[in-house]
């Protein structure tokens, strides 16, 4: 009897707690590198990302080849020389929205939350923590954040000849419109 009670409780806990999963396959991740010699930017419009509104779990999967540059040659060199995207096709993030309970997904408004987790680029995993905004608008959620990373932390080698063209502080912008999936 007690066992059945526990089972019912467990079931209840899984089915009726919080607001379910929000998803998109068309999130945007862009980066910007500024130096006195050259500004370099690229954007990826095909980012897969989802978060669980009850547990706060949030995840991203980014295909490196889908970053679009203004110059095709730059895109080729990005994949071929810097990211080795055949060997490391995806960058991923697996983390938590730390104070997810502070976001009311049923009420329109802007919420700030800290997102923390493991960012994996080129096979190197590092802890990343960033302040993010979540904008709730009639059931859809826009998530946005910016943070800085150093390419050399992720084994991305910058040869001496282009050393002054690529910043060691690359600004990453994440912007995704999530819709409720179940």
């Amino acid at each position: 009897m007690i066992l059945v009670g526990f089972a019912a409780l467990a079931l209840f806990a899984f089915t009726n707690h919080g607001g379910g999963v929000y998803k998109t396959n068309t999130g945007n991740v862009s980066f910007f590198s500024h130096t006195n010699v050259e500004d370099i930017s690229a954007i990826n419009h095909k980012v897969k990302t989802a978060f669980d509104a009850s547990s706060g779990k949030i995840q991203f999967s980014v295909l490196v080849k889908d970053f679009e540059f203004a110059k095709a040659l730059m895109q080729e060199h990005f994949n071929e020389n810097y990211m080795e995207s055949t060997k490391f096709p995806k960058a991923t993030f697996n983390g938590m929205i730390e104070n997810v309970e502070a976001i009311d997904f049923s009420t329109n408004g802007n919420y700030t939350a800290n997102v923390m987790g493991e960012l994996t680029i080129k096979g190197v995993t590092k802890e990343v923590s960033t302040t993010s905004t979540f904008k709730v608008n009639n059931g859809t959620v826009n998530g946005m954040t910016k943070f800085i990373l150093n390419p050399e932390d992720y084994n991305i080698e910058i040869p001496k000849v282009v050393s002054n063209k690529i910043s060691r502080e690359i600004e990453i912008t994440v912007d995704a419109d999530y819709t409720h999936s179940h």
Partner: protein
Amino acid sequence: MMSRILFGFLICFLIHASYGQGLDLLDDDEPITNYTTATFKTNRVVNGHSIETVAKREFDFKISHRFGFLSGGAYELFGLDQATMRIGGDYGITDNLNIGLGRSTVDKTYDGFVKYKFLRQSSGAKEMPVSAVWMSHAGVSTLRFTQPERENLFSSRLHYVHQLLLARKFTEGLSVQLTPTLVHKNLVSADSLANDIFSLGVGIRQKLTTRTTLNFEYFYVLPDQLETNRTNVLSLGFDIETGGHVFQLFFTNSSGPFEKAFITDTNAKWLDGDVRFGFNIARIFNF
């Protein structure tokens, strides 16, 4: 019994692992098509075309030099006292359709070509083992006619080249290209010589570092088509890519920077030391 318990453990472990580490919220297992890029560093292997094309609205400005024979010795500074050159460029109408123009000192030849990539090597959802390109080229020699007294036709100055380029990037480092080629000369110097010359080119590139490669290129001309002193062109070189530029430094037995010249007019032998140093410089401009 034991194995059944182990199996159970294994299943539990696998389920646990997929929950603990994977991106379980995402449908991340859909197969995607992965198109192969950068089979070669640039759109020439050494002398001949590679399957690479310049991107839409990009102009690849090319300067090609071939010096004299190394066998010229110190007196000729190992060939550097003489040079033949081509100046020209490739332009991307689309990512897959390129046109090009050039002018060579060899026979004062102007050339133009059209190059179209109709297959792209890919893996994943769509499997395609090779990339394939069609290249058609026309050249016009503007040398003065050697016998001005006879009736000379403009059409005698023309030659045409058609090539099918098939390439596969086997690994990140190794790419191989096969290039069946037809050269058509409107005018040849004797009845016994063919106007249509068939040959097969082989190009191999091996990466040495991410930015440098070793390239090999050979064109085999089927027998009994050319003058008896003709030899097949063999070239060995390096590509050095520095961002916007690709430098190709090579040794070859041909002086010709266009197909008709290096496939059908080469008469030097590597074994006699009749090898030339040469380079191509490619610089990409965006419009």
